[in-house]
């Protein structure tokens, strides 16, 4: 069955709520409003206000409550509207969720799932459009997921809920209307995957940049790797691909400085240096807050033509 990325997210939530009485969803406007991006539409009616729980605008409070509920044996799914808003909850994510297992000498487990929208492309301006996956991927103790396909949008939630540690799932509004096949196959949250075979260059990407990299790959005979899991990173398919193509471009909507791309490039230097025929290149967001005006927003983000240009630069 062909469905949209948004419908896949909703179907994943529905299955999670139906499959385990410990699972509940909470966040701003997830219930009566139906979710800011209509992801959770209809779930309140289906599962009731105890399990699809509208919260006040208290990101710190309700994310922390998710940590506590997870400690108390529940399987909370906490929705934080956008990654920009998640900064209000950073203390609970970084100082509690990520640390409690370690600080307690392994006694405590925080099986919390946080869902949050990331990335630009909808003219929502600087405070709703940023891409901070690299910040979260810096932190030991949490897993960071970036579903870019319908299959992952549907399947990653279940895998995240089965994990005994905190997992952050970034969802991409720029992909909400994309379509794909809904499958009942389980997805893993451990591996990166080849999304397109090619021979001239390896394009390494994740999230909203995946379709852009796929478009560029058509023009340059690129092999596209979807990282999918940003912490812990699975470099296996990346290194395998680079052994074949001998060139790599990392495509990442993070700002260039301190980006996730920087980490991927560093690992390529450490583990794949002698397989490379050219320096690794990257296409990131320009170092500017995401602007509102459409043409400026487009100019600030990675685009297929920038990716093609970066690839051509490796052959110059």
């Amino acid at each position: 069955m062909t469905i949209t990325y948004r419908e896949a997210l909703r179907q994943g939530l529905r299955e999670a709520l139906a499959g385990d009485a410990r699972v509940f969803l909470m966040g701003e406007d997830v219930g009566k409003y139906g979710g800011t991006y209509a992801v959770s539409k209809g779930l309140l009616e289906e599962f009731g206000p105890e399990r699809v729980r509208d919260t006040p605008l208290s990101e710190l409070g309700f994310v922390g409550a998710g940590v506590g509920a997870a400690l108390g044996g529940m399987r909370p799914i906490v929705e934080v509207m956008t990654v920009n808003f998640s900064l209000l909850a950073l203390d609970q994510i970084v100082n509690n969720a990520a640390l409690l297992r370690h600080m307690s000498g392994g006694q405590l487990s925080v099986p919390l799932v946080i869902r949050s929208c990331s990335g630009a492309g909808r003219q929502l301006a600087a405070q709703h459009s940023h891409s901070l996956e690299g910040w979260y991927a810096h932190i030991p103790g949490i897993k960071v997921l970036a579903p870019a396909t319908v299959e992952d949008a549907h399947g990653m939630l279940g895998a995240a809920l089965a994990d005994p540690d905190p997992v952050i799932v970034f969802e991409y509004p720029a992909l909400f209307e994309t379509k794909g096949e809904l499958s009942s196959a389980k997805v893993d949250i451990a591996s990166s995957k080849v999304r397109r075979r090619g021979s001239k260059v390896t394009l390494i990407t994740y999230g909203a940049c995946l379709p852009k990299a796929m478009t560029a790959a058509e023009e340059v005979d690129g092999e596209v790797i979807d990282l999918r899991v940003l912490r812990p990173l699975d470099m296996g398919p990346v290194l395998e691909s680079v052994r074949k193509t001998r060139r790599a471009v990392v495509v990442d909507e993070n700002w260039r400085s301190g980006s996730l791309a920087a980490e991927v490039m560093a690992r390529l230097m450490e583990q794949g240096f002698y397989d490379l025929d050219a320096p690794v290149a990257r296409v990131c967001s320009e170092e500017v807050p995401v602007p509102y005006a459409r043409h400026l927003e487009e100019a600030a983000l990675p685009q297929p033509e920038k990716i093609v240009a970066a690839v051509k630069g490796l052959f110059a």
Partner: protein
Amino acid sequence: MSVPFLADMLRIRRLEEKCAELYGEGKIRGFLHLYIGEEAVAAGAMPALEAQDNVVATYREHGHALLRGVPMGAILAEMYGKREGCSGGRGGSMHLFDAQRRFYGGNAIVGGGLPIAVGLGLADVLAKRSRVTACFFGEGAVAEGAFHESMNLAQLWRLPVAFLCENNLYAMGTALARSESQTDLCAKAASYGTTAFKADGMDVVAVHEAAQRACAQVRAGQGPVFVEFQTYRFRAHSMFDPELYRDKAEVEQWKTRGPIHSYTARLKAKGELTEEQFLELDRAALAEVAEAVAFAEAGTWEPVAELTRHVSAA
């Protein structure tokens, strides 16, 4: 109940006096925050809880952990950094944990434990369990957004949380009146519609009665309760504090209301305690401390090869 209160306060006092000594010897490092002067709060409040209840505490939590039942040896071994410590040596003084006793730390972010307490309460409501979550925090936390967000959520959802505020008047070195426009802490809690009342935190009996009243209301499903225990820290904030922010006379004045000797005097005046009985309790506390020191000393260091354990389950 009278003698257990006294025994418990003495156990905390003697443990922490030894901690200060061991800190001087370099056996304990890092930050060490002593509860000396405030023992009546933990000693009065903890017996109001039942085994299935949850406890969330702060970085000044040695006494809470001890009275929740964490063995003194495991607490001291934790401060030594030994693997026999109650957090395996990964936490130290500020991060004592005991999952089996539902003691959830040991949180060194001021206000960091309050949302967790809300979540523990929410889990109990959703799982239809009858438990109280007792959340201890200092008055410094009421300036944090986490306090206000937590009070609102707990009241909005009628969660079974007892917010137990230990007001020792100073957030590190900043006096309440220098940091809060509204110094009546109960007024803040009451603004959320939460039942809020004060108790004399230097009087263990008054603390116990207040904690029982709070827990009874919470257990009855009537939503959260906030209690302000007015207390005082006799020692420095941590071992690095020259105490420039308060007068010695003020400290001496509060010491005349010390929870151990005032309660002892009251019991003696009522003929419920003799000096010999007092000395016996004190000797027992000192003996427990000596055993705990021996346990910590005999503890082992976790091999460095295990450094990356406990980051994630896998």
